[in-house]
C-alpha cells in the first residue's frame, strides 16, 4: 500500500523537483484533477519523470509505470489491454509525455495506438525541446528558437502533432495551453470520455529552456496564443473548433520578445516568422468555418 508521508491537496505531491515556474507541473496537476484516482499513468523519461519519483519515493497517488522514451503509447496500450482482459473498462489509462518522447522518438508507437483505436488518453506537454537533458532541439521546437543543438536558431518549422493524430481519424484531438486552465481541463475531460484514443497537445512554457523569468510562464503561454504562435483548437468527430475568439492576432514580437531563446532573430527572421504564423493560423481557421 502506498505510504503517504506528506499530505497533499490532490493526487500530486506539492514538492516536486520541477523548476520554479514550470508549465508542465500545471498540466500534470490539471490532468490528475480531471482524471482522478481511477487512472493508471505511463510516463517516459523526461521532465515529467520527476513525478514518477526517485528511489522509493513518488509524487503521484496513482499507479504508474515509467517506460522507455519512445514507447509511452505502447505501454499505455498494454495497460488498456490488460484492464480489458480483466473486464475493467472504468479505469482510465493516461500516457503523459513530452514533445521529444511524442513527436520525435515516440511518434511510431503513438501512431500505432491511434490506428488501432485503443482507448488511451495521450497528453503531450510541449515545452518545445528536450528540457530534461539540457534544452536540445526536438521536432516540436519552433523555427528560429535557439537550443543547445540549434544554437543559431532552428532553421525549420515544427512537426504538426495534432494534424498527424487527426489523420488517423481518431475521435478526439485538441491543443490546449496552461494559460486557460478551464479550457485545458475541459479538453482532458472530453478526451477521457470518447470511445477510442484521444490526444491533448498542451503548450507548456519552460522558463529554463525558453529563457524568461519564471514568474512569466502564464504570460508567455497567453502571448503564444494571442499572437497565433500556438493555435488553440479541438477536433471532434471530424469537426474543428477554434477555441480562441479574437479577430486580429497580435504581432509575434509580443511573444518572442519575452524569451531569450528568440533573442538572436534578425528583423528579417521576424518578418518571416510573422508571415509563417499568419499563414499557419489562416490554414487552421479556414478549416474551422
Amino acid at each position, binding site marked *: 500500500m502506498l505510504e503517504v508521508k506528506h499530505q497533499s491537496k490532490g493526487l500530486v505531491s506539492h514538492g516536486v*523537483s520541477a523548476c520554479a515556474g514550470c508549465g508542465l507541473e500545471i498540466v500534470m496537476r490539471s490532468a490528475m484533477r480531471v482524471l482522478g484516482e481511477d487512472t493508471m499513468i505511463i510516463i517516459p523519461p523526461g521532465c515529467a519523470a520527476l513525478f514518477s519519483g526517485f528511489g522509493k519515493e513518488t509524487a503521484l497517488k496513482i499507479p504508474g509505470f515509467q517506460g522507455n522514451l519512445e514507447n509511452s503509447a505502447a505501454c499505455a496500450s498494454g495497460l488498456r489491454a490488460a484492464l480489458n482482459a480483466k473486464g475493467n473498462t472504468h479505469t482510465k489509462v493516461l500516457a503523459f509525455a513530452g514533445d521529444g518522447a511524442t513527436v520525435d522518438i515516440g511518434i511510431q508507437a503513438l501512431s500505432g495506438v491511434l490506428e488501432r483505436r485503443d482507448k488511451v488518453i495521450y497528453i503531450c506537454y510541449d515545452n518545445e525541446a528536450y528540457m530534461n537533458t539540457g534544452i536540445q532541439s526536438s521536432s516540436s521546437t519552433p523555427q528560429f528558437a535557439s537550443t543547445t543543438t540549434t544554437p543559431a536558431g532552428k532553421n525549420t518549422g515544427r512537426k504538426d502533432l495534432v494534424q498527424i493524430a487527426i489523420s488517423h481519424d481518431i475521435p478526439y484531438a485538441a491543443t490546449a495551453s496552461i494559460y486557460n486552465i478551464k479550457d485545458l481541463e475541459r479538453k482532458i475531460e472530453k478526451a477521457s470520455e470518447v470511445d477510442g484514443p484521444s490526444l491533448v497537445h498542451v503548450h507548456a512554457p519552460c522558463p529554463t529552456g525558453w529563457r524568461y523569468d519564471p*514568474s512569466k510562464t502564464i504570460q508567455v503561454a497567453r502571448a503564444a496564443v494571442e499572437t497565433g504562435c500556438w493555435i488553440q483548437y479541438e477536433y471532434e468527430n471530424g469537426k474543428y473548433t477554434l477555441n480562441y475568439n479574437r479577430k486580429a492576432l497580435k504581432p509575434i514580437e509580443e511573444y518572442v520578445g519575452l524569451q531569450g531563446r528568440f533573442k538572436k532573430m534578425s528583423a528579417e527572421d521576424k518578418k518571416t516568422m510573422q508571415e509563417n504564423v499568419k499563414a499557419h493560423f489562416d490554414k487552421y481557421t479556414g478549416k474551422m468555418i
Partner: protein
Amino acid sequence: MQKQQEQQTRNCKKINVYGPCANEFVSSNTGSWRLERPVVNFENCIKCGICESFCPCNVITIHKELKESVEIDYDYCKGCGICVNECPKNCIKLVAEGSVE
C-alpha cells in the same frame, strides 16, 4: 470476460518486491529553494482565485470567508512569482527571503 486474478493485495500481507518500485508518497522540501517569497496585501484582494489556479505547486488556498483570504504553504512554495505576475489587482509581491517574518 475472464477474471482470474485473485485480489491478493487485499489481505495486506507485506512482501518484498524486487526491482525499481516507489511506494512512498512524498513531497520534497521545495520551499527551501526560494530566494524570494510571495506576500499578499489582503486590502485589495478580490478572492478571484487566479493565483490559486496558476500556482504550479498547488500551494495556494483561497479562503473566501476570511480576511486573510490567501494562504500560501511556504513549505513547498518555490517562489516562482507566477501568482505575483498574474494577480489582476497587483496585490502579491515578492520580497527577499528573510526580510519579513
